[in-house]
C-alpha cells in the first residue's frame, strides 16, 4: 500500500492551496461554473445577472459569495483551481498576471516590477513551519534527499 502524504505536508507551503482530490470534490461547482464561461453566450448571460446564473451550479453560500466578490484566494481555498478561475478573470478581461497580482495583494505595477526583478524569492517562502528553510537543491541536482528540518522559524 502506498501511504498517502498527509495534507499538512503541502499545506505547510505558504500562500499556496494545493488542488488535490479533496478540494476538487469540494470545488466541483466553482470549477464547472468557470468552465461554462468558455462559451460566449454563457459569459453574456452571467454578466447580465450574476447571482441568478450562479443558482444553476451546486455552490455553497460561501462559494457564491467568493465568486460574486471576485475573491480569488477564497475561491482557491474553497476548491477552485486557478486554470478554471482564470476563465472568470478572462470574462472580466483580466490576464493570468493580473489575477496573480490581485491574489498577492500587490498593485499591478508593483507585481510587474517584482517579476522583472526576478520574481518572488523562494528564501523565506518555503514553509510556514520553518521545517524547510534550507533549499532542497541537492535533489534538483540529482540526489533525491530531503532537506533536513531546520530549527530556525520563520516569523
Amino acid at each position, binding site marked *: 500500500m502506498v501511504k498517502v502524504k498527509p495534507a499538512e505536508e503541502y499545506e505547510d507551503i505558504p500562500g499556496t492551496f494545493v488542488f488535490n*482530490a479533496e478540494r476538487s470534490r469540494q*470545488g466541483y461547482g466553482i470549477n464547472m461554473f468557470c468552465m461554462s464561461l468558455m462559451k460566449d453566450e454563457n459569459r453574456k448571460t452571467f454578466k447580465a445577472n450574476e447571482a441568478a446564473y450562479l443558482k444553476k451550479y451546486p455552490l455553497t453560500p460561501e462559494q457564491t459569495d467568493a465568486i460574486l466578490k471576485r475573491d480569488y484566494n477564497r475561491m482557491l481555498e474553497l476548491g477552485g483551481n486557478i*486554470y478554471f478561475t482564470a476563465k472568470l478573470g478572462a470574462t472580466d478581461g483580466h490576464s493570468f498576471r493580473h489575477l496573480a497580482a490581485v491574489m498577492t495583494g500587490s498593485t499591478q505595477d508593483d507585481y510587474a516590477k517584482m517579476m522583472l526583478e526576478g520574481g*518572488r524569492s*523562494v528564501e523565506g517562502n518555503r514553509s510556514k513551519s520553518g521545517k524547510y528553510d534550507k533549499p532542497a537543491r541537492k535533489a534538483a541536482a540529482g540526489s*533525491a534527499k530531503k532537506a533536513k528540518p531546520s530549527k530556525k522559524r520563520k516569523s
Partner: protein
Amino acid sequence: MAKIIAGLASSHVPAIGAAIDNKQTEEPYWKRVFAGFEKTKRWMAETKPDVVIAIYNDHASAFSVELIPTFALGTATEFPPADEGWGPRPVPVVKGHPELASHIATSAILDGFDLTIVNKMEVDHGLTVPLNLAFGSPKEWPCPVIPLAVNVVQYPPPTGKRCFDLGRAIRKAVASYPDDLRVVVFGTGGMSHQISGPRAGLINQKFDKAFLDGLTKDPKKLAAMPHLEYMREAGAEGIELVMWHVMRGALDDKVKEVYRFYTVPASNTAVGHIILENTGKAAKTAARKKVGAGKVAAKKSGKKPARKAA
C-alpha cells in the same frame, strides 16, 4: 525502423502565445524571450523531424474536472486549437500521426502503461506555444504531431519516475515501428512559477538551473525528486516540470546537450529551454540522412550497418 533522434524541452507560457498572436514579438520585453529560440528554429529546420511527440498538459480546455486522465494519447488525424476564452489561437490545426500514435498506445499499454486514448481533442497553449517556439508561425506545421496530455492540474500528477518510465516505453514503441521515421520528443511546461494564491510570482533560478543540469547528466536521479519539492522550491505550478521526464526517458542515457536557454520572466514564469540529441551511431546516421535523401538503409541488427548507411 523509426527512431527517436532528439528531445527538446520548453516552457509553454500562454502570454508567449498572446505576444505572437498580437504581434508584440519585437517589443523589448518579448524580444528577450524570442531571441532565445532563434537557434532552436534553425536546429529544427536542419533536423527536420518526420514526427514530433509532444508531452504537454491541458489547462482546463479539453478536460474539465469531469474527466481527469493521467496520461492521454492523441490518436486522431487532427487536433484543432482550443478556445481558451479569447477565441482559438490563430495557429494551424495540429495534424496527428494516427498510425504511429496507435502503435505507441498498443505497445505502451502492453508494457504496463494504461494510457487513455483520445480520438477527439482540442489542444491549448500548452501544445501550440512550444510548436511556435520551435517552428515559428508557418501556414502549416511542418510535420505531424502526436499529443500526449499529462494531468498536472489536480494533485497528484504522475511521479517523475513514472513519467521517465513512460518515456522509456515510448522509446521502445517507436523503435518497433516499421517505417523509417525520425522522431523528436518535446517536453513542455515549467520552469519555476506560481500563478495561484498569495505566493504567486515565485521564481527559483537556482532550482531551475540545477534541474537543467540534472536533466542532461543524471536524469534518473532527477526523476526521483518528490512532488512536494517541486511545489515548495519551484512554485505550485512548477510541478509541470514532471512532464520533462517523459521526454528525457525517451532518450538515451547519455545525450549531447546542444542548446540551452533561460530567462526570467515571461509573465509569471521562468522560461527554460533545452535541446538534447541522442548520440548513438544509428541516431547520428539518421540525422545526417535528412528527409528526402531516401530511406535509411539500417538493417534490423542495428549496430554495424548504421555507419554504412550514411
